[in-house]
């Protein structure tokens, strides 16, 4: 079985870097191959990196409330780029105002998992393992 590759980063022009650094380290410690794009990563760079590395998942961080603007049409762009099997996760403060429909809105944008801020990484790691197993990759 091939190594599992995960792309991480903070999407758009968001500078909040701490979350993605913690996520990247936790993934590495769990044995994943991590391509850490860091903060302020445009959506196109996530796609490019995923193509180049044949990645299995993307885990995006966002804290500045504008990710929804950045990610319009993102799933379609993934499909156009041939990334039809990639898992898409996002977590953080995903809207300007608090709202109950954040998860639904991001699932509509094509994300498989949507996490609130300060989620324990253990939860995301367990979800990732389950989702990869369901796809027969683990």
């Amino acid at each position, binding site marked *: 079985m091939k190594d599992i590759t995960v792309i991480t980063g903070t999407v758009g*022009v968001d500078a909040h*870097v701490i979350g993605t650094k913690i996520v990247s*380290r936790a993934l590495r410690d769990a044995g994943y191959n991590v391509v850490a794009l860091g903060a*302020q990563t445009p959506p196109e760079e996530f796609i490019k990196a995923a193509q180049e590395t044949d990645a299995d998942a993307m885990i995006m961080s966002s804290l500045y409330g*504008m990710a929804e*603007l950045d990610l319009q049409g993102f799933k379609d762009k993934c499909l156009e780029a041939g990334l039809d099997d990639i898992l898409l996760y996002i977590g953080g403060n995903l809207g*300007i*105002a*608090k709202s109950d429909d954040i998860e639904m809105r991001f699932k509509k944008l094509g994300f498989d998992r949507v996490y609130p801020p*300060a989620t324990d990484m253990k939860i995301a790691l367990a979800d990732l393992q389950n989702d990869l197993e369901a796809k027969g990759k683990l």
Partner: protein
Amino acid sequence: MEIKVRQKRIDEDKFLEMRKGVLSLWHTGKEVELDDAVGYQKSLPDSKIFHKVVQRVREEGRMVLFPRSGTPIVEDEIELVRSLNELGIPLIPFTTDSYTRNLQLDKAQKGLEESIRTGKPVLNGYPIINHGVKTTRKVVEACDGAFDPRCSRMANSLVGEVAFASGMTAMPNSFFAWIGGYDKKATVEECIETAQYLGRLIGYYADRDVIITTDCHGWLPNGVYPMSVNIATQIIEALISAEQGVKSVFPQINLQGSMAQDLGDIRIVPKLYRKYLDKLGYNDVIIPGIVGSQVPLYPFPQDMGSAFGYITYTATVAALGEVDACFVKTIDEANGIPTKESHIESYRSAKWIFDVVRQQKLEIDNEDIRQEMRITEAEVTAILDRVLELGDGDIAVGAVKAVEAGVLDSPFSINIHAKDQVLGVRDLKGACRYLDFGNLPIPEEIKEFHREKIAEREKAEGRKLDYHASLEDFWAISKGQLIGTHANS
């Protein structure tokens, strides 16, 4: 690679040539006319002039809140600043949105238009460049306060131009804050050059008797970490600004939760600023006061009770330390961009503490505080002296070399040029200590002190402190503790 930047004032002719490029970045640049702007600044009442407001507050023995405000629709922004003003807030930091900060002005325009169309803000701040001078003067004129806009490197020069022409009288010029938290790819030289432009713009006003203040934030700690690098880098920012003609600098003390350390820093920082400003010949630069700040980057409590607790801790220490202004976050910080109502609730609780605690003038002096002062002073002095040495007396050259060498370093920084080889944890009393010194030029006896404090906690907890302990401490405040709990204990 050859270092081109120098600690040297930009010639006026060169500066005026540089301005043309800055003002051509967006069509509202045409609204900025320097002579008119100087005239407008001179027409402002004292209540809109930042350093005068700070000095007045200090003379009156009061302290005030230093909130954040920024929402895209101008009518909403006016309502927000008026409501802050009605709460007795005379200093108004003014947040620009992230697209503006990154000079993505087409996107800011689209977000602004969508916000206006739907009546709901989709930008996380006020797009000051898109609004331009005429519109922003309306905001400045709408209330009786001194404005201080927030930006980061990419748009700093144009935001400064628009803001000062609109009557704002302070602005951070914190290039280390960009390296720590805002700019992924810029080199240290690019950051310094941008800061020199803003300093020179403020210097142009100062030559015409208009004093604009710069806040110095320094390299903001993105984790639990002693403040000596932050303070040393604030002072470097002040020195770079002063060379360009800035006459008023405003230190920021980041309050981390250890009362001895927080009070020690409040007391020693202005003295260290004065020492290095005078040492390098900037004797006429004033420090009108200081601002205390809830450490900007710790995770914030999710529940309202803990959030109030954290806010009022900060307010209490700031009041005991007799700072002039204090930044606290709002009770809904963990949920996103604060609402107007939460600003008001949060600030009423902080103001209650300010008014009740500060007037008591309770003298707090003990060996713990004095010890923290001595340690901070020794560390900051060692770091700054090494930076000056690296630059052969030129602080700009020294700063570039120091980041490259890890002589200046801070954990979890955004910028790819930072070494990121350092780490901190709390000791048993909750003070922040160095766990990994990286290449910081900390004197050996001070290093030994940190090692002892860490050994005490390791003994008490029966484990080695490491990266995970540092992260546990990082999350602790959001969970209602100062010292993190070991995940497996």
